[in-house]
């Protein structure tokens, strides 16, 4: 079974987003009516993780998978973190905007999570800049190749990075507005219904980024 997930979006819990979770889920109904396929989203709030936030009722009401992660600021750019556990939150200060991203990558793996550098081609803040400065990132093998909030040339830099290094690539909308949800997604070959299953699917390597238009021919389900 294939699962299409938007791996990068922000609700009003993030300072610069203006969309509620419910508005995202409502807008996904619009996208589905237009013939696009999106099964779920992963909320990746900036610099925080809310263990108590429970979207299961909304998820059921709208028929959308809602998972939780985070987008953390590090001295090596922003990093998407999936399957966040209490252990990881204990070891890492999510609000530290100058944390060592390499430590975050290690800690996440130790606690069963997974880190994907966000918008690596983004000027001034993406992983490409730090690689060009000679930094190395042993724990990285997947980056966000398609970020629908980035400039086209920034996504081209991300694609070139993947081609040069063999990194695998995910896709996400980086939505901060309801109508931007799902503009890019990740197509997984696996059936994903939880954060641990998402990590398992990332580790399997069987996924690819898609723009929303590329999901149009796919039957929903």
């Amino acid at each position: 079974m294939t699962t299409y997930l938007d791996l990068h979006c922000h609700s009003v819990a993030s300072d610069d987003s203006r969309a509620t979770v419910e508005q995202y889920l409502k807008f996904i109904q619009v996208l589905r009516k237009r013939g696009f396929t999106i099964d779920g989203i992963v909320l990746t709030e900036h610099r925080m993780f809310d263990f108590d936030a429970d979207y299961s009722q909304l998820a059921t009401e709208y028929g959308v998978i809602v998972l939780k992660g985070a987008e953390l600021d590090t001295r090596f750019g922003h990093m998407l973190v999936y399957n966040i556990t209490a252990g990881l939150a204990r070891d890492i200060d999510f609000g530290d905007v100058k944390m060592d991203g390499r430590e975050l990558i290690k800690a996440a793996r130790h606690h069963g999570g997974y880190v994907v550098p966000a918008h690596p081609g983004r000027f001034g803040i993406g992983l490409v800049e730090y690689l060009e400065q000679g930094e190395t990132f042993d724990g990285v093998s997947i980056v966000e190749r398609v970020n629908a909030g980035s400039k086209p040339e920034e996504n081209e830099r991300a694609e070139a990075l993947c081609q040069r290094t063999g990194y695998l690539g995910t896709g996400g909308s980086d939505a901060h507005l309801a109508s931007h949800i799902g503009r890019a997604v990740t197509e997984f070959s696996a059936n994903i219904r939880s954060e641990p299953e998402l990590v398992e699917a990332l580790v399997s390597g069987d996924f690819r980024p898609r723009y929303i238009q590329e999901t149009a021919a796919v039957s929903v389900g």
Partner: protein
Amino acid sequence: MSQSAKLYFEDVELGDEIGPAILSVAGDQVVDFCSLWGNPAPNRFTDQAEAEKVGLDAPIVPGIMTMALISRVLTDWAGVGAVADLDLVFRGTVPHNQPLHVGIQISDTDQDAAGNHVQCDITMTGPVPDRPYVIGTARLDLPSRH
């Protein structure tokens, strides 16, 4: 245009796209606007040299003037008094004398005892729908036909 424009709650639907409205701001408009808050020209909004001093390539449109322009687009479309909340994030500098595209997309509709509410996503971009200069939302309170 403005006087006759009147929008009802039933006229809009989740997902509707409106516009873009295409605007342009000339330097003398910015000078005029800046005079309102006692920030006389030359300053970084009106003068090339002053702009360069603070690291800008060219003078820019002030954030609150950008907000006023977006408010105008909303009022032209929905009518006077419709804008109940306008919430903008300024992501990039807005240039003078360039086409500015203001797009509106309906992201939610809701009726309750307080009225008929329409939530809109707003973007302001250059001619290429690249990363927007401005993103945000507006809540419009509209009359019902019923």
